[in-house]
């Protein structure tokens, strides 16, 4: 029985939240909450089980849906990368669920939240597991629609406009992606990733397909200059939603890019593409950070921080393209960044949301004395800021370490400068929030409502737990590094696994 259960783990990772979603919809405003809590809690052991399976196996696992083998049917694939992303999704998802129980307490307005939320979790899981380019399109759409619906959930004017912008961008991205899929199928006649990898050859249609898919995914990932939809959407969504959008949703499209460029093909498939993405990434780091420095609202600042941090993800491509035998460092850096940023950024948004919901505003100017009024939340924000800056001991530091190593190893040291400069800029915008927090609380200078009640502890501590997890990655990150290396394109030369 246990073995059978283990064998179905990949399917369960999708099915658990997917079944729960309509149930939560049916259950309504009140009973949707326990349904969501149980489903997101169940996802955690499922994700751990998958991670354990993959680690034990040491190579990719496949699960054929409907029993139809690959070229015909759709497969789920579990390797280190997808297991890692699933794990992050489950952990962040659970923490955000716990937070949301406090955030959406007794709000009839958000009665649809739980169903939408579970759909989002399910679609993220489906996306990270899918081994089929067209199925990935459906997953992307599922992710986009649920994410947009969550952004617009509050019905407030800014949120609605942001959702609209997000929706249009997301659909546009999907259409580009779908056009790419059409061309891929036209060129190679298969949809399964592994089969595609096998038959992929130098072909104009195929290369164009990769280009179109990349455009679509860049748009969905909000890489500079396609970030135009992200700041309003992430800033105006309900805070738990912001957390998941920044932490997970943008990583979903990045994940597909990563799959295509390092698993199916490699960055040299379209020469120059890696460098182009890297340059955009560098611009994102600088531009996003600079804009974060200028924001007047806390959540906008955090959103621009996401724009900047997304840039780090894309530094992977040029380094993988040129790194030669040092692919491993760059690849691990990018993936590890996805993980640590997911934890830290969700913590940051949850913290920002706590501030917003407790004090009724998130104007940075009005946050004087915050550390006194909300110490746990400030701490959570500050700790996740450490990861944003890439300072030790944090996951961000490991990322920085790996990127700089890869840059120096491959002789492309200018990427190291970008990484370091980004860290300093991050310090700047994190300081903008944390520093006033330490300011002396004077009645005239602080905009924090003295009578504001306490936040539910679970909200504050959900944020803190995620921030601490991001920090712990900097010290105890080795298992994660080991996990994500399983079956990765670089696993053959990864020194730490001894393979």
């Amino acid at each position: 029985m246990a073995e059978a259960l283990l064998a179905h783990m990949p399917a369960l990772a999708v099915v658990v939240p997917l079944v729960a979603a309509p149930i939560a919809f049916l259950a309504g405003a009140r009973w949707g909450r326990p349904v969501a809590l149980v489903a997101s809690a169940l996802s955690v052991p499922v994700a751990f089980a998958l991670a354990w399976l993959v680690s034990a196996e040491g190579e990719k696992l496949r699960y054929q849906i409907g029993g139809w083998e690959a070229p015909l049917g759709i497969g789920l694939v579990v390797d280190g990368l997808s297991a890692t992303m699933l794990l992050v999704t489950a952990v962040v998802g659970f923490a955000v669920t716990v937070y949301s129980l406090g955030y959406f307490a007794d709000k009839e307005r958000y009665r649809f939240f739980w169903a939408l939320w579970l759909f989002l979790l399910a679609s993220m899981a489906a996306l990270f597991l899918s081994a089929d380019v067209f199925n990935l399109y459906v997953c992307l759409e599922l992710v986009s629609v649920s994410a947009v619906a969550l952004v617009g959930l509050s019905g407030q004017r800014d949120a609605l406009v942001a959702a609209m912008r997000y929706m249009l961008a997301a659909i546009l991205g999907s259409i580009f992606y779908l056009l790419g899929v059409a061309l891929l199928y036209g060129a190679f006649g298969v949809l399964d990733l592994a089969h595609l990898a096998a038959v992929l050859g130098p072909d104009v249609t195929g290369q164009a397909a990769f280009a179109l898919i990349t455009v679509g995914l860049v748009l969905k990932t909000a890489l500079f200059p396609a970030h135009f939809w992200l700041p309003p959407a992430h800033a105006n969504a309900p805070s738990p939603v912001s957390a998941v959008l920044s932490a997970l949703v943008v990583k979903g499209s990045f994940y597909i890019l990563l799959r295509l460029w390092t698993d199916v093909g490699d960055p040299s498939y379209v020469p120059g593409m890696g460098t182009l993405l890297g340059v955009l990434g560098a611009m994102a780091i600088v531009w996003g950070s600079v804009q974060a420095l200028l924001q007047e609202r806390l959540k906008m600042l955090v959103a621009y921080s996401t724009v900047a941090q997304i840039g780090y993800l894309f530094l992977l491509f040029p380094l993988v393209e040129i790194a030669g035998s040092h692919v491993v460092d760059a690849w691990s850096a990018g993936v590890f960044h996805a993980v640590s940023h997911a934890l830290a950024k969700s913590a940051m948004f949850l913290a920002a949301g706590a501030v917003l919901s407790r004090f009724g505003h998130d104007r940075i100017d009005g946050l004087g004395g915050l550390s006194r009024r909300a110490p746990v939340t400030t701490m959570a924000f500050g700790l996740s800021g450490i990861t944003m800056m890439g300072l030790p001991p944090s996951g961000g530091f490991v990322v920085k370490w790996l990127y700089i190593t890869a840059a120096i190893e491959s002789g492309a040291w200018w990427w190291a400068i970008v990484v370091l400069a980004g860290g300093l800029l991050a310090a700047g915008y994190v300081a903008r929030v944390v520093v006033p927090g330490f300011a002396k609380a004077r009645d005239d200078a602080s905009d924090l409502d003295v009578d504001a009640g306490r936040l539910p502890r679970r909200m504050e501590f959900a944020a803190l737990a995620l921030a601490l997890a991001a920090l712990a990655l900097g010290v105890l990150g080795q298992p994660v590094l080991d996990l994500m290396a399983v079956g990765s394109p670089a696993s053959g030369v990864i020194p730490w696994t001894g393979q």
Partner: protein
Amino acid sequence: MDWAVIALLAAVALPFATAAAIFALGEARTTARSAVNVVGAAGTAVAVLACAASAWQGRAGGPLASAGIGLLDIGFGFEADMLGAVFAVVAGVLWLVTTVYAIAYMSHSPDRARFFGFFSICVGSAIGIALSENLITFFVFYEMLTLATYPLVVHSGTPAALRGGRTYLMYALPAGAALALGVVWLHVLAGPVSFVPGGALPLGLAATHPVQLTAIFALLMLGLGVKAALFPLHGWLPAAMVAPAPVSSLLHAVAVVKAGVFGIARVVLEVYGPDAALLGLTLPLAALAAFTIVFGSVRALAQDDLKKRLAFSTVAQLSYIVLGVALASPLAIAAGIAHLAHHAALKITMFFTAGVVAEEVGAYRVSELDGLGRRMPVTMAAFSVAALGIVGIPPAAGFASKWLLGTGALDAGAGWVVAVLAASTLLNAAYFFPIIHRAWFRAPRAEWATGPDPGRAEADLRMVVPLVLTALAGLAMGVLAGAALSPARWALFVAVMEAM
């Protein structure tokens, strides 16, 4: 696990555990928090002393207590060696003293949980720095220290404090970036770098990659130089003096700044070793340190703010350590390492005093100290002893370092250092003696006489006893410099190992 390993881990972990407990106890539970703090500090003191004992046991090349955790291909490692033990003991033991002081000093201040929590983290980071076995572990704790210090600098929350904190970050964060680049680059070039007396670079690397190694050295010095307050990276230290007295005392006179110089010592002695001189890197460093000594002293001269004067004095004094390390003769190295401890005891006394004075009589400027010796003779006596010690007046500890440094410099063929020492002595005297003079020889200010007992009104005993203890320690380290286990003797052992 034998006791040495337990002590090693406890020395690093206890301060962090204390911090966690303090944060958890929160603002309201003052008594419990103070108790936890003192117990944690005492435990840490015992642990670092045990580390020192184990280092002493292993001094002749025997196995050292070590522990670690793997990450990437190097991991975090700790080791109780002779050099590290010096800094660990200084930080750990002075923490206990400072804790007692700080509990009294901060007794009417808000946000004490935050203060003491971060304070503990700072000390833990400093001890981690001291006991790090390799460069990356060192770097991790170094950056933790950078961040954990910030809340303490801005603790009061005044605009001035925030400005000071901003200045601090403006220096410390780019420095961290430079350090990171240097550390990674070195790691790429030379593989995992563990600290080894006599240098850790692979044989022949200096011959094959001189330019890269020089660039890395420059980056590392840039990173470490900020905390070590080397000119022109010193600007944050005077600005950080807005912090409460315990912070200025332990962190900005001991833990933080010495983390920088300690790092320089590690890099020069135990990473580059003889290659540093081979590549021609030590002379510029020595010259910079020498310049900093003179520069800091001259700037100190012009400060009326007592803590700023002390801060510039620290700028100058830290470079004694750097200078000793850069000169690289055994005696000079010993001088540097010994001064690490000597300056710590002396300068912390002075900052304690500055805090007491500010708290008790509201005097922040040198010009406000008239006749203070009569108002609080014990405090000012301790201050005077420490000041004389820093100037290098025997028999206080400063002289022992100065003597070793002078002789070591001549051993190293750097006679010009003697002139620097002479100039520094004069300048030190010029900025400290007026303070002593004012305190003891000028008529007391009128407003102090209104107290209940104007003649003898020392501060809270919990503040006075620590500063007396540290002053006595500063005296004893000089008087008993030749005794077994004195910092100077210990430093000589280390120096001989390093120079071999």
